[in-house]
């Protein structure tokens, strides 16, 4: 039997071959497990996940929520896990109010192109609907819980992810002031950005070992550091006055179609900002690209520096009362047009009637808003002391109305305005221009703060918007109090300027700003704008404004209304004074109501 011998020989041979192969595997295993592994030992590190804190609310001074965080649910799906897509699509369509085909299409996306590895891979995530309210989420949750251990729940593979949604219940209300959040949930404008740290809170952490489907592995390391919810911020904004201001400005904005129009209401004795509105506005719940590109998200009250025009004469008058001893008897003639240095300066009345105001004193200069007379007083007191007063009134610096961070920087961006470092000696027209509010740039906030100092008997108060910061439990951790910056002018000076302003409303250009039943101090302003690119003042583009306070003897409210390039009419007395009156009248009722309570 020779074959037997061959078989035996070959049996040994084949066995030896297998043993050699096994030895090869042993070598490979030794290489993988004994020699190579050091580098990959730590591969299963702990997985850290942020737990998002709840963002604090922004409240009006009466506690009305202006911005708050609400719970919503994102409905997502893991397409490969959904057993019956068509049936799930039908159920979801009814629950989510979306077309069935759209859901089915999303549920069928089981493959996903991975650009990094350039290959198709399983797609475990599609978003079906964002920010679904709790009622809908509860229905879905009911279909996600298995009825028994054998059958899968009807919506198996669908997931609910809790998320916080920032909600602005009053929509456009003080939108530019509040600002809005970006997609990542961080504040990008307004108070949402300025107080992002306080509102945002501290994220918690969930540290766990997770499996490939990102679920915590039971029995492994699992640690939860709870998040600290954001603080609530209480503003000085009075929702009633804010609403009054918004409505009044909106009506005027429709009528005169300015680029933008803003109104500011402050309490002169404290510096609290009671209302701050800019129109046109936007809905912070849905910020569109157009909103941003059209500048509707900009808070012009603090971000826009303009040449204030006639309203600035109040500052000139205040300085003149202090620095020109003969201010009450001095009289100057307004010829309508006058040569100062190389330039000819015109009074506004010259454009209309081709004549001047005639002889007048300081009070008349405010009443008639006479450029030529006021510039004579400025020349009398000299440029340097005038500049000192301008600076002391707070121009050329941010007002700090939003508060400061710990390092002293402002919370929100504010325009500084431009105050010239010195008056050009060689050009007497420079001082003349400043005296009636050209060649300086101020923000509406700066101007109203300065006027508040006049109303507050010469003491400049620091304006503020944030009254309190509270923790989510309600403990007050910061309370702002009225803060005196400095005394700018003497009490008597302030009273004198107030009397000019009262006369302006009673007899002069400010008549449309008069409020029945109150003695109102006010001043109109119509400033020519320098057109873009050109160096000269435009004959058609104006910034109209009206600033005033009431009651004149014991001011409760100071109000500024500014309109940029109104169409149709451009006089502050026509465009802005009625808005002032509307706000002033209704706000006084509102204040009385609050006081009565």
């Amino acid at each position, binding site marked *: 039997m020779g074959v037997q011998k061959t078989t035996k020989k070959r049996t040994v041979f084949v066995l030896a071959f297998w043993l050699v192969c096994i030895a090869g595997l042993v070598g490979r295993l030794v290489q993988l497990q004994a020699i190579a592994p050091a580098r990959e030992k730590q591969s299963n590190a702990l997985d850290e996940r942020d737990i998002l804190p709840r963002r604090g609310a922004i409240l009006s001074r009466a506690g009305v929520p202006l911005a708050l965080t609400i719970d919503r649910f994102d409905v997502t799906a893991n397409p490969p896990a959904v057993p019956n897509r068509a049936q799930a699509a039908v159920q979801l369509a009814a629950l989510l109010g979306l077309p069935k085909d759209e859901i089915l299409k999303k549920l069928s996306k089981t493959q996903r192109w991975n650009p990094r590895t350039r290959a198709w891979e399983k797609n475990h995530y599609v978003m079906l609907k964002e920010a679904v309210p709790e009622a809908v989420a509860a229905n879905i949750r009911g279909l996600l819980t298995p009825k028994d251990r054998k059958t899968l729940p009807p919506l198996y593979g669908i997931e609910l992810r809790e998320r916080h949604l920032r909600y602005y219940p009053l929509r456009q209300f003080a939108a530019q002031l509040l600002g809005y959040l970006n997609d990542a949930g961080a504040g990008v404008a307004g108070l949402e950005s300025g107080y992002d740290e306080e509102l945002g809170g501290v994220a918690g952490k969930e540290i766990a070992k997770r*499996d490939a489907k990102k679920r915590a592995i039971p029995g492994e390391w699992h640690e939860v550091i709870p998040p600290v919810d954001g603080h609530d911020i209480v503003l000085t904004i009075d929702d009633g006055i804010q609403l009054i201001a918004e409505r009044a400005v909106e009506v005027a904005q429709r009528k005169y179609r300015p680029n933008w129009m803003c109104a500011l209401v402050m309490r002169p004795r404290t510096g609290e900002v009671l209302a701050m509105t800019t129109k046109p506005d936007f809905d912070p719940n849905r910020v569109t690209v157009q909103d941003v590109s059209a500048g509707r998200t900009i808070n012009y009250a603090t971000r826009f520096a303009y040449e204030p025009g006639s309203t600035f004469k109040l500052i000139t008058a205040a300085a003149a009362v202090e620095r020109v001893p003969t201010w009450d008897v001095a009289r100057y003639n307004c010829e309508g047009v006058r040569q100062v240095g190389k330039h000819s300066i015109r009074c506004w009345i010259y454009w209309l009637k081709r004549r001047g105001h005639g002889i007048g004193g300081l009070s008349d200069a405010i009443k008639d808003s006479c450029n030529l007379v006021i510039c004579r007083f400025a020349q009398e007191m000299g440029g340097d002391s005038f500049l000192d007063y301008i600076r002391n009134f707070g121009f050329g610096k941010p007002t700090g109305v939003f508060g400061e961070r710990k390092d002293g920087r402002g919370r929100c961006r504010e325009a500084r305005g431009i105050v010239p470092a010195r008056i050009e000696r060689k050009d007497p027209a420079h001082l003349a221009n400043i005296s009636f509010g050209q060649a300086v740039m101020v923000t509406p906030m700066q101007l109203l703060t300065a006027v508040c100092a006049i109303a507050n008997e010469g003491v400049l108060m620091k304006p503020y918007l944030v009254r309190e910061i509270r923790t989510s439990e309600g403990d007050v951790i910061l309370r702002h109090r009225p803060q005196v910056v400095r005394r700018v002018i003497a009490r008597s000076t302030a009273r004198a300027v107030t009397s000019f302003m009262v006369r302006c409303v009673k007899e002069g250009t400010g008549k449309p700003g008069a409020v029945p039943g109150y003695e109102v101090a006010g001043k109109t302003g119509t400033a020519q704008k320098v057109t873009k690119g050109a160096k000269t003042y435009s004959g058609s583009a104006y910034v109209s404004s009206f600033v005033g306070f009431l009651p004149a003897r014991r001011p409760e409210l100071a109000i500024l209304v500014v309109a940029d390039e109104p169409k149709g009419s451009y006089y502050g007395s026509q465009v802005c004074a009625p808005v002032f009156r509307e706000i002033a009248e209704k706000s006084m009722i509102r204040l009385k109501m609050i006081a009565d309570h």
Partner: protein
Amino acid sequence: MRAIRPTPEEYTFSYAASEPDRPHVRVATVRVLLPAFDPWLLFLVFVLTFGGLAMLFSASYAIGIEQYQSPFYFVIRQAVWAALGFAAMLWVSCLDLSRLRAWSLVIYLGVLILLAAVLFTPWGMTHEHVRRWLKLPFLPPFQPSELAKIALVLVLAHCLGLALQHAHFSWWTWLGVVALSAPVVGLIFPEPHLSTAVLIVLTTMVMVFLAGAKWRQMGLVIAGVVVLSVFAYSLLTPYQRERIKSFFIGGDHQGSNYQAQQSVRALKEGGLWGKGFCQSQRKLFFLPAAHTDFIFAIIGEEFGLAGTLLTLSLFGCLIFKCYHLAHQCADPFKSLLCAGIGTLLALQVLINIGVATHLLPTTGVPLPFISSGGSALLCTLLGMGLVLNVSRSPREWTWRGHDEDIARRRWHGRTHLPGVSHR
């Protein structure tokens, strides 16, 4: 061992001692009551099966909870199959081998019918685009291709054993081998089940080689097989092609290389001593098929190099045992049977571990005894039953040959126990 196993002389004695007019079969039956298995073989099978069950629990509880809300889902089913498998193994190990040999062609034909039933009858079951299972009443689906491996080894051993007795390995023998194995491959390949088809071809080649095929013939046939496999490659589904390509080219398609990378990572993380039982991280859905084709990686992760080497050496011992028995046998049928079962085992172990260590392209070859899969475990244990059967009496002949039977007018094919005088 020698003490337990009776020598031919002892058999002769027992044969002579029995009453002459009683059939010889009775003697064998008496012997069965005192099983004389190779104890080491039995021990290895026990260790691998029960160790495998424990390992399967560790590798499958996560996916069991995920898919069937029970950590024991897979391991309980596997345990039931293991119990069935042990019963089958003991039954087969006590069968009369010569009778089994006589029935081998019938068994082979039965398996062919089962394979055809998978493909062509409604009892075939399709799961994830492959049609490999047969629906059974009261039992989980069964994979006839597993049974086909054992049946083919049995029938090849039978036929080649006859051929060996002719001491002449001709082209006719080759033709017979092809005639037997081609239908099996032809019915398994289109399921599609590439890995099992390849496994069967390789096992057949090894058995033919052992049976003494001439080198020149072997070379020609291997060349033929290569040509055929190139032809077969053109018939592959894109999915199978991608798998082969992704290994040789290295692109990551359909995540097959991802599996291999995760497997290698699991082995590396295991290090020398491993993370401990049930401590594997990769099985938590990082490594797909952790409880089936890649269970070896989980062994490596939980028990480290120590565990993998122990597992490998257990398989090594089992393969050695099979071949050692094959070497001892006087009867070419028994020899080829043991070698064939050993070859199946060796190929599956080598391919599975080769895949797990990323030495071979990813194919779905389960690790014998350990991977989840009832029919595979049952059939592996059946195969072990055959080897145990041989181990009872390795030197005994089963079949002197057809010619002899015909000469002695034994048409019934009943066992003829050889005596020393027949040598």
